[in-house]
């Protein structure tokens, strides 16, 4: 341990650059994956938190509700309610809008029907949604853009007053009466989807199949594990995350390879000295690999600090973004950095142990 540590401390700039490069690779992995997964999971959790068991959409629709508005007849609510096992149904119109340069999803709901699914909106300030011309925003959006009860905002070409602020984490960021949103979108009698609550968890699957069989042109989706379903439906997401992971591995490997190779060249005479002392190949390789492991472990620790800082900065600068750095990805990021470092050290270590001891001692 003494020799690797002494070598690292002797070449402080080289070691610092090495640690920095490894840490940036891991930070890139953790933040990008955290951002991607965090955003998807946050949306999925909000949808799950509405409280239903099933979502009914038009056949062929995606999991990203905001990409469409009314496409299903509202009267399907009656048909779905008649299916055995269904306890409650809440139609929702979804729409996307921009507000103060940010992208938001708006839910048009019938407050009573929405509450029948899972308890509805929990108002933390102001009043429930009751009348046209009013909307409810969630607490995260209110805090991010500085909205308070009674504020008036322009949305979809109309002026709305904030009636209340709901607890974040349910459905969308903004809610208005479904009838008003349908009218504004010229989609009277049409809805985007239905949230369905079943009589018991045991009948969810059979009820879903029964809805598909009884209501033509619809597609049902279970809300269980909705985040995973959303992620898997995103074309290229796995490949994107895989590419970042492999990039981290390669960056770590190349940085350590370069650093350790240049070290081996610099330390040629030292390797000759170790050989003259009778150091075995395992001893020399072990010291080189240990030096790279120390550097990469420092890189991993620094990456945790950088990631923490990056997440804090993103949270302040972009409060609507969710970055989810999970223990699983911390382990993956750390492993990529350390595995890359060890792999990067193997070739220089191999070069070192193959050096002729006399030639190494003569190296200037």
């Amino acid at each position, binding site marked *: 341990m*003494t*020799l690797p540590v*002494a*070598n690292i*401390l*002797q070449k402080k700039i080289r070691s610092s650059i090495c640690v920095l490069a490894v840490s940036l690779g891991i930070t890139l992995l953790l933040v990008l994956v955290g951002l991607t997964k965090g955003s998807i999971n946050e949306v999925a959790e909000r949808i799950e938190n509405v409280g239903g068991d099933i979502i009914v959409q038009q056949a062929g629709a995606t999991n990203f509700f905001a990409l469409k508005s009314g496409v299903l007849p509202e009267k399907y609510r009656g048909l779905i309610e008649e299916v055995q096992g269904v306890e409650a149904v809440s139609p929702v119109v979804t729409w996307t809008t921009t507000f103060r340069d940010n992208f938001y999803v708006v839910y048009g709901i019938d407050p009573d029907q929405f509450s029948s699914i899972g308890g509805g909106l929990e108002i933390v300030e102001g009043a429930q949604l009751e009348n046209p011309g009013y909307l409810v925003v969630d607490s995260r959006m209110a805090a991010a853009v500085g909205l308070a009860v009674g504020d008036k905002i322009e949305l979809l070409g109309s002026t709305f007053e904030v009636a209340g602020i709901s607890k974040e984490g349910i459905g969308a960021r903004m809610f208005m009466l479904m009838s008003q949103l349908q009218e504004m979108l010229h989609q009277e009698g049409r809805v985007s989807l239905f949230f369905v609550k079943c009589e018991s968890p045991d009948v969810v699957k059979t009820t879903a199949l029964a809805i598909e069989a009884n209501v033509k042109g619809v597609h049902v989706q279970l809300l269980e594990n909705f985040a995973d379903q959303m992620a898997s439906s995103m074309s290229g997401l796995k490949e994107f995350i895989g590419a970042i992971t492999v990039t981290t591995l390669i960056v770590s490997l190349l940085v350590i390879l370069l650093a350790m190779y240049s070290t081996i060249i610099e330390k040629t*005479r*030292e390797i*000759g*000295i*170790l*050989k*003259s*002392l*009778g*150091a*075995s*190949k395992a*001893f020399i390789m072990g010291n080189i690999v240990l030096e790279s492991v120390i550097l990469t472990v420092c890189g991993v620790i620094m990456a945790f600090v950088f990631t923490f800082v990056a997440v804090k900065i993103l949270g302040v600068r972009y409060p609507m973004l969710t970055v989810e750095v999970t223990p699983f990805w911390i382990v993956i990021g750390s492993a990529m950095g350390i595995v890359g470092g060890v792999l990067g050290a193997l070739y220089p270590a191999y070069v070192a142990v193959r050096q002729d*001891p*006399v030639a190494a*001692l003569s190296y200037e």
Partner: protein
Amino acid sequence: MIVVKNLEKDYKTGRVVVHALRGLEFEVDGGQFASVVGPSGCGKSTLLYILGGMLKASKGKVTVGGFDVTSAGEAELTTYRREQIGFVFQKFNLISSLNVYDNLKIACDILGRTNGTDDRINSVLEIVGLEHKRKMKPLELSQGEQQRVAIARALVKQPKVLLADEPTGNLDSQNSENIMRSFRQISNTNGQTIVMITHNRALAAATDRIIEMKDGRAVAPGGIEIAAASIEREA
């Protein structure tokens, strides 16, 4: 202790073949302090590296304490260097990133003997008079002190044979004399066999015997016995 028979070593550089050693023969008894003298390029360092198991001979046989150096494999030679040989080089060859203590400790680590490491290191540092500079880095020491650290590093392994390649080549006369005193003390008290390469005939005269080389051969086969009457020996 050391038996060298018909030793040859050729270096090939492209089509050019250099005969560094051409049938060298001599013997050194256990506990003797021998010196090898001769002009530059006569094969002294080549001989030392072959004795130390760092270089393979082209022909001939070398045994050290019964171990056949010339027929041993790489792994055996590594063990031989680790357990039986201590090197002292002209350029000291200390590890610059390690302090005096750690330069000695790494030799113990390589040897794999962990018991009593501290005591052994302190003891050899006392022999070379550097116990008060154990925390200093090599570049913070004078050249004479660096060479004494190198000797201490060789001694801490308690090798059977000490091989010194021009150990006073970079030192002034005062430091050279100190180093020679150290070698003499080691030879007299520890009974270790020492083979020292030197250009300095005055220093060679202070050893038990001189092996004079020229053109890869010993000028007088078997070496030249020297009367033990120098100032250094008396010291």
